[in-house]
């Protein structure tokens, strides 16, 4: 059972932290798929020194594209469930089982991690909290689904969701695209409280305001010509 669950970790130039993230990830006993999205800082070599599947994009495409590649790989290897996990050390491997449990019990197709539910992260920087609140409502406007969190990279999908979800948004708007597909295909979903570690590293790698404008622009385009 353990090896038919795949943890998909997209990475792009994460050399300072990837070893620690992978060290913890392999201890879960699940299959690990690292999708290296065209790193140029030696991340690839570090990944290859771990007992994980390493897929390398020839050019940098974006996090959405990397997740899709990982999911295709998991599908080819008859995965029963897939977990999306960030490489920058902001997610805890202890949360992976919490995310999987509703899926393994057959309760729903998709599980979203939420830092705002009871039992989730306590300390969230003020500016971050406010922009996430805004993002929740942007997601709701576009998809009709109002979650308690937005752009939380920690999620779990069962086999059915894996078959239905085809991400075409290569960059960061994939988080909203997933909600879109969940609604369109009638997938069932739930939220589970998770902990996000706010390190100086992950804050630096995080989303800028300019990026959120890009995301909204991409979503508008997708809405118009899909």
């Amino acid at each position: 059972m353990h090896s038919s669950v795949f943890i998909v970790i997209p990475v792009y130039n994460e050399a300072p932290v990837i070893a620690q993230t992978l060290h913890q990830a392999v201890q879960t006993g699940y299959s690990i798929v690292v999708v290296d999205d065209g790193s140029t800082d030696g991340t690839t070599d570090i990944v290859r020194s771990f007992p994980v599947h390493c897929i390398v994009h020839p050019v940098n495409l974006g996090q959405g594209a990397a997740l899709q590649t990982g999911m295709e790989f998991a599908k080819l290897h008859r995965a029963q469930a897939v977990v999306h996990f960030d490489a920058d050390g902001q997610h805890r491997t202890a949360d992976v089982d919490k995310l999987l449990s509703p899926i393994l019990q057959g309760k729903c197709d998709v599980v979203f991690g939420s830092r705002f539910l009871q039992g989730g992260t306590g300390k969230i920087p003020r500016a971050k909290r406010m922009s996430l609140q805004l993002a929740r409502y942007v997601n709701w406007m576009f998809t009709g689904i109002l979650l308690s969190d937005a752009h939380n990279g920690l999620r779990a999908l069962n086999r059915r969701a894996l078959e239905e979800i085809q991400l075409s948004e290569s960059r960061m708007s994939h988080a909203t695209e997933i909600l879109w597909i969940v609604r369109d295909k009638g997938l069932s979903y739930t939220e589970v409280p998770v902990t996000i570690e706010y390190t100086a590293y992950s804050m630096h790698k995080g989303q800028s305001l300019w990026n959120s404008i890009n995301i909204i622009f991409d979503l508008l385009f997708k809405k118009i010509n899909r």
Partner: protein
Amino acid sequence: MKLTQLILIVGLLAILVSYFRWFRSAVMDKLLVAVILAAGIFMVVFPDLTNRLAATLGVGRGADLVFYLFIVGFCYLILMLYAKIRKLEQQLAELARKQALHDVQTQSTGKS
């Protein structure tokens, strides 16, 4: 004929010639480009015509009318180009994904 008119006509003709020379495209596209450029030359030769058209549409000068139309056309063009870039990015992603998955597959069969 004023010097400005001459320069503009030469420029428009140069665009027409290079389009026909370098871009192989459908007959309809060529026809459309030819008609637009012909209209451009026509307006350069008879500037009073755009002035009168502008007056009937409630715009001060013919040049202003051309400028406004240009802005609208330009914005439309940018949107079209962005849509095209998005399409290309999706195709690039599919191509790169196929390549990456193929590489990892041949690696694992090579090992065993």
